[in-house]
């Protein structure tokens, strides 16, 4: 039942925030913060309760599960389950949710109640996506997070918001409907084989299907997830949506919504279609590599700071796609690490851009410069997150990208080479932000306030997280380990056969890792 509360709390808080807005502008903000705080507390209890199990030695993948009936006639259940991977993702959701509430404290001044309702409803949908183990329930949450985000962009966004919000909605909905088709296809083929018609994830695992239908269904899922991720030909909605969204919207989009795509690939595509993932692996990895390089090049060419960060996301998420389809232990761990760190660092960058825009009234790099003299603290933070984004060792993003490259190199060395170039290119565009925005001659007349305490709090906690993940990544990796093992068990049979000497790679990797230490 705890899991249901994780979804209900933000939803109720959203409704409460909406209704309380008539009394004061502060109520919605505090209610949202309280709800997200409660969320983190529940997660902590769940995790601590798990780490000292009653029966030591018996190590379960699933921390908690909930199974309720929903539409029994069609085999749809309200089933939720949490493993280490979901725990990390939900924790990230709550953390970035708090950051989103705090960063919109002064930015959002109209319809505050409705804004927070949408924000919390979107977060509830995201938590649902990370927890659902019934495919229809998953699809419902997938769409539930979409509608409030559409409103967030369409109502509180910048100049071109309507265009961006509609484009975002249509792209994701088109991918989603293809996934719905695939879900239904899976449901009926599973039903015809076993006689049990169900949408339950665990029962659908291990359905043995003929190759062709299975391949088509996998492509249906892949369509939805690669639009959300976004993989390169399907990324065109992203720069617009990120740029036009209000800061909180960008944080949630980049930090969380993109991660649902990656999560879906790990949770559903790999284990549900073990027999055919190897068909997709090479094209998907090529998409990943193209994304890394293309995203980096586009990022370099932007003058709109928000657009720059948006394209850098395309580049960073390319690593995630690469890692997921390399599918060995290292690469998957790297992908998860990259998901978390990218969520935090890009979220921070968007908040930073929001802060600069609030102070200077522009996002255009051509009109910035010399900000360091007037707002040195913001400048320093900007430098920190630019370094995180370019993958400086010691910061979380480095761990993610390095592990991905390591894993990919073992399985597909030819993919790893161009992907590694992406890190070099990240240096170029990341330093360009610092160079153009903060250095250079300053406009002396500008009198703007440096960091407010509220902003300092958000930023320092994000810096702390990135440092922690960079210096002690093992804690996070350990949490995700059993879930990744479960997924590799379900999906890995064919892959290990194909990559005949995975075992030897593993020893090699261990060697390398011990050297690194």
């Amino acid at each position, binding site marked *: 039942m705890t899991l249901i509360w994780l979804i209900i709390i933000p939803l109720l808080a959203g409704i409460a925030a909406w209704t309380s807005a008539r009394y004061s502008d502060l109520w919605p903000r505090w209610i949202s913060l309280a709800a997200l705080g409660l969320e983190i507390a529940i997660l902590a209890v769940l995790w601590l309760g798990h780490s000292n199990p009653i029966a030591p030695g018996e190590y379960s993948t699933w921390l908690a599960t909930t199974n309720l*009936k929903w539409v*029994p*006639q069609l085999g749809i259940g309200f089933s939720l389950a949490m493993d280490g991977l979901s725990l990390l993702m939900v924790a990230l959701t709550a953390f970035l949710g708090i950051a989103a509430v705090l960063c919109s404290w002064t930015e959002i001044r109209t319809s505050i109640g409705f804004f927070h309702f949408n924000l919390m409803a979107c977060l509830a949908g995201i938590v649902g996506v990370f927890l659902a183990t019934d495919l229809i329930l998953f*699809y419902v949450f997938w769409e539930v997070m979409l509608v409030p985000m559409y409103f967030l962009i369409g109502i509180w966004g910048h100049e071109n918001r309507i265009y961006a919000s509609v484009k975002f909605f249509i792209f994701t909905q088109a991918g989603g409907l*293809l996934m719905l088709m695939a879900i239904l296809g899976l449901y*009926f083929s599973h039903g015809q084989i076993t006689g049990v018609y169900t949408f339950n994830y665990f029962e659908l695992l291990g359905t043995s299907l003929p190759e062709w239908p299975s391949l088509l269904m996998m492509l249906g899922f892949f369509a939805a997830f690669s639009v959300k991720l976004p993989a390169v030909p399907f990324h065109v909605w992203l720069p617009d949506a990120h740029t036009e969204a209000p800061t909180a919207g960008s944080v949630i989009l980049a930090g969380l919504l993109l991660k649902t795509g990656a999560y879906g690939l790990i949770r559903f595509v790999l284990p549900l279609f073990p027999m055919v993932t190897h068909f997709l692996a090479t094209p998907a990895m090529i998409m990943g590599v193209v994304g890394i390089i293309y995203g980096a090049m586009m990022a370099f060419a932007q003058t709109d700071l928000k657009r720059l960060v948006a394209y850098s996301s395309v580049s960073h998420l390319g690593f995630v796609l690469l890692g997921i389809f390399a599918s060995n232990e290292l690469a998957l761990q790297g992908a998860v690490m990259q998901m978390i760190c990218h969520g935090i660092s890009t979220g921070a960058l968007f908040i930073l851009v929001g802060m600069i825009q609030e102070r200077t009234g522009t996002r255009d790099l051509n009109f910035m410069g010399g900000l360091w003299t007037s707002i040195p603290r913001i400048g320093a933070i900007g430098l920190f997150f630019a370094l995180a984004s370019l993958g400086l060792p010691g910061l979380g993003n480095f761990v993610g990208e390095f592990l991905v490259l390591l894993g990919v190199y073992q399985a597909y060395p030819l993919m790893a080479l161009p992907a590694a170039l992406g890190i070099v290119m990240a240096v170029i565009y990341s330093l360009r932000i610092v160079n153009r925005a903060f250095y250079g001659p300053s406009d002396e007349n500008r009198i703007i306030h440096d960091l407010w305490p509220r902003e300092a709090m958000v930023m320092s906690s994000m810096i702390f997280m990135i440092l922690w993940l960079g210096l002690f990544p093992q804690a996070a990796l350990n949490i995700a380990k059993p879930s990744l093992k479960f997924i590799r068990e379900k999906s890995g049979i064919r892959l290990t056969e194909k990559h005949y000497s995975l075992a030897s790679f593993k020893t090699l990797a261990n060697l390398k890792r011990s050297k690194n230490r």
Partner: protein
Amino acid sequence: MNGQELLPLLPLLIVSVFVVLNLIVISLYRNHQTTALLTGLGLVLALISTLFIDKSTPQYVMPLIIVDRYSIFFVGLILLAALMVTLLSYRYLELQKESRKEEYYVFLLLTTLGSSVVVSSNHFVSFFLGLEILSVSLYALIAYKAEDSLGLEAGIKYLILAATSDAFLLFGIALIYADTGQLEFARIAPMFDSGHIGFLLPGLGLLIVGLGFKLSLVPFHMWTPDVYQGAPAPITAFLASASKGAVFALMLRYFTKIGIHTNNSLLTVFAVIAVASMFGGNLLALLQNYVKRILAYSSIAHFGYLLTAFLASGNLAFSAVTYYLAAYFVTILGAFGAITALSGSKAEPDLIDSYRGMFWKQPLLGGVFSATLLSLAGIPLTAGFVGKFYVMAAGINSHLWILVVSLVASSVIGLFYYLRIISVMFSKDLGNSEATGSDMTGMAAAGFALVLLTIALVWLGIYPSSLIALIQKIVPNPA
């Protein structure tokens, strides 16, 4: 024919009695409120009476009418729709300068009666009779605002085209009769299995033309946008829900009986019509600037979606169509209900631009309208999603891949115009739109109807199993 036989007809009889009662009351005491109340009372009584009919076995009233769970379900649905339309119409008529408000309700009860006869018919005679009662009173209702040239145009257009399509229908019936010597649906159906063709197929072809017109499927859809736009909003709601739904429900029952899934030529014809309706409706809607016209084209597309499930076979398809129809009733009544509630004494808000900023001026009505649009677009947590999900499931189960893929592709196209309306409503820039819907006349009744419809919309979206359980009981011929 004795009293026992008449009992199953109770809902129809009650409606007829209230038609007469209304006429008498109007001639003695002309008062809008009294007539509206009387109409509502009649519909509620008819609804209650559906609960008391023995549903264990199908009962026939002569060979003409069949009363079983299936027909009672749809009669109930039509009565509910009529009740909602009555509640909405009160406000609409109060705002009109039209002096004769009362006869409207007589026609409304008559169309309700007609639709109910259509869904319960078991015989071409009763079917045609029901259809005529339905459409003749609709002519009057569509053109009810006598000073409004758009309304008159719509009424005449509907009259001429409906009469033409009736001619097709009659010719089809005649051909079928010439071949089989039967007018009873149940007896015609077996003729198909015997492999005998003759005049049957051409007859059916003509029948499909007639039905296609009533359901406004492409290429028989030309009248739809004009009539939707010209008719009073509550009447458009009735036209879109009950009158189309009744014809579709009947078609579902008997076309599945004659086995369209095994007949390749029929299957092809319907599949082509379905794909054309989905794409035609959704693409043409993109070009419109009037909200009611957009909804008209969207309804064309929605009946294309419905045909997908209709062509799938088995119990799943049956419950899919029924669920979809129920969900569509709720949604489209809500949408036109919101338009009714938003209209002022001058005119209905019609141009998309007149909805600018509606959400901020009229948060509740704007919210309801957005919810119905999202439901039409098939977004989860609304009735429309479960309906679309069901239809897709039925299509995939029967391997109708072309239809399902067209459904997905065309509903993505459809998103454009639904989002367009929603975006305009949420726009902060209030522009030059006049304040509409500020007139509170009759808002209590309309508001009540809208609240009920919204609750139903969300309830069916979140907890569909209650209705699904009911629908699974009413499947008339379990496969």
